[in-house]
């Protein structure tokens, strides 16, 4: 039964007095990050929506023009808090492309491992997010605690828990400490052993199915045309993955298939995350097994005064939310001339909000937002 078909609502929508503005966010427990929608409501139904962005705007792209090439590495991970490493790698890859250098093999593998670990943390947060938005806090508690296992690994490898600043142009900053890979494999086993628990409590839960099924449907064609990327795109049946199509780091040496699903609704996107989570664990295991010995960094001279010849490049990396792209213009100086960041969330956060939300009730806004893995900092910049 479609509640929109009630004639009362139809009359109410035309009457100016019965509609009211509801501020969904930024200060709202269901909101992912510091972002908001201004919903024009009739009763509990959404009439129209206006994104209320800009709370996280820091002017990254301007600040990057003020700082040196290496100094910018402290800024880039802060563009996406949940999944910081793709930013570092994409930035470094762009710089390396302009300089025309190839990094050592071991560094490529280490980059791959950090990227995949970062993806795991983001997926675990996403699983927690699904729980939180549906009022199911058990998976939220579990997944955030499991995420900490990987954060510990990051802390051991790089010295930072959330912001690692591990990749630099020419490779990575330091080699892995002794015993790191064994411990990492142990953590992977532990995480894999937890998967049945998540399955039973979240992905097989009948009420989760009831809530998410058919929510926020995106068709195959629309997903390609409107710039969705990552799991959202693959959940609509498009076999596109930057790791396969424009291979970078050590992905050409690893064996994996692109996971696609038909369906395109929130439930499919949740399952997509579940499936890719398993794949990611597999990828880390492969990378740890195959990692060669050798240098971890090219000698590019004194990096503090690094100069990059004039040129430009757009390099992209598959993050947990989709395609992160860095377009960098260099004029040959010690600072970038222009860095432009392509965040994956903008099409979902702005365009699909205006398409999807007016067909929904207030109940589903948070769950819808979580299912499209919208991360406000990357479009607020």
């Amino acid at each position, binding site marked *: 039964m479609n509640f929109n078909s009630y004639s009362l609502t139809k009359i109410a929508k035309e009457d100016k007095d019965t509609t009211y503005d509801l501020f969904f966010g930024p200060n709202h427990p*269901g909101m992912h990050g510091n972002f908001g929608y201004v919903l024009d409501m009739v009763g509990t139904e959404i009439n129209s929506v206006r994104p209320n962005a800009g709370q996280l705007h820091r002017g990254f792209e301007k600040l990057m023009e003020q700082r040196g090439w290496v100094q910018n590495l402290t800024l880039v991970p802060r563009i996406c808090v949940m999944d910081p490493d793709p930013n570092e790698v994409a930035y470094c890859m762009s710089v390396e492309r302009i300089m025309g250098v190839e990094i050592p093999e071991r560094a490529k593998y280490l980059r791959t491992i950090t990227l995949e670990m970062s993806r795991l943390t983001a997926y675990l947060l996403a699983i927690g997010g699904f729980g*939180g938005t549906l009022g*199911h806090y058990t998976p939220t508690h579990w997944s955030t605690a499991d995420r900490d296992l990987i954060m510990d690994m990051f802390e051991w490898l790089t010295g930072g828990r959330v912001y690692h600043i591990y990749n630099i142009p020419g490779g990575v900053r330091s080699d892995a400490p002794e015993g790191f890979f064994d411990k990492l494999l142990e953590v992977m086993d532990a995480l894999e052993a937890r998967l049945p628990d998540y399955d039973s409590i979240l992905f097989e839960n009948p009420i989760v199915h009831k809530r998410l099924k058919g929510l926020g449907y995106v068709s195959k064609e629309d997903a390609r045309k409107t710039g969705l990327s990552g799991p959202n795109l693959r959940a609509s049946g498009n076999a596109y993955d930057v790791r396969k199509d424009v291979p970078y780091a050590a992905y050409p040496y690893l064996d994996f298939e692109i996971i696609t699903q038909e369906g395109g609704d929130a439930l499919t996107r949740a399952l997509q995350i579940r499936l890719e989570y398993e794949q990611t664990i597999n990828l880390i295991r492969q990378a740890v097994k195959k990692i060669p010995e050798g240098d971890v960094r090219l000698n590019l001279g004194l990096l503090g005064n690094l100069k990059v010849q004039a040129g430009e490049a757009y390099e992209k990396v598959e993050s947990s939310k989709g395609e992160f792209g860095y377009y960098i213009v260099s004029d040959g100086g010690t600072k970038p001339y222009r860095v432009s960041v392509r965040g994956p969330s903008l099409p979902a956060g702005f365009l699909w909000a205006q398409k999807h939300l007016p067909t929904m009730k207030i109940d589903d806004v948070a769950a819808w937002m979580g299912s499209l893995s919208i991360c406000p900092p990357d479009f607020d910049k």
Partner: protein
Amino acid sequence: MMTVFNIILYSLFAILVGLIFLGIGRKVAARVHLRYGPPFYQSIIDVIKLMSRESITHNFVMDLGMVMALTGLIGTMLYIPIAGHIAFESNTNIIVIMYLMAIGHLGMAMAVSASGNPYANIGVSRALTMMLGYEVPFFTVMLGLIIYNQSSSVMVINLAQAGSIWNWNIWQMPIGFIAAEMALQAMMGEKPFDAMIAPAEIASGPMVELSGRYLGLGFLTKAVGVFVETALIVNFFFGGGTSVITFVIKQLEVFLIAVIFDNIFPRYKIEQAVKFLWIFPMGLAVIQLILLAI
């Protein structure tokens, strides 16, 4: 004079037990989450702190409504026998209980809609819709009990189950018990039927504008509500109790089952919840009624 003393004693007892139940519930929920959780007396601390805070009121109706919600539930509690003790004796007290239990929600509705916050209004409309959802199956089960015992006095139903554990109504009418448990989940506002609170959707709904004392009263209402609802189930299906302690332990068991279910399901949307309540518990209750009639 004795009655007044009784009333105060009963309500203090209910509040205290209810608050400790809430604290134990948080502790158990924490264990499901693989953590330790707060101490069991945390809810009492919370309430005392809330009472000492600055309270922002919007108008007179808000003050009145919150008090009405609490007194409504305390009034209900006075008609429920606790291990044979009862504040007001009455022959037809199920009818009174049915009537009084709604007052709590109505008082809350009055108070929070006076605040004018749209989230609160949505929350209250959800709470009242949910009430519509669970009262029908719950009272159908009660009707079964009344028919079975030929009396609408909780005391009589209670005494009929005395003696052996096999006299309990849970064995006499198990289908009705399952229906009542489902309705109880909704009555206590536990998941999957907590659409009226729903922090991720409507920012904790009715409580949006409540601060300080008003929120403290809300907590007390919740605590007394938990006490009343579990006491009803214990009286109807678990044969009451020989002493207050066994009664309270039985209540705690009923409450903990609700808490565990609360932690393994997400929430239904309000229309899904009402649909569910009107199909499954209602269906079971009607089946039970037919079985009794035959």
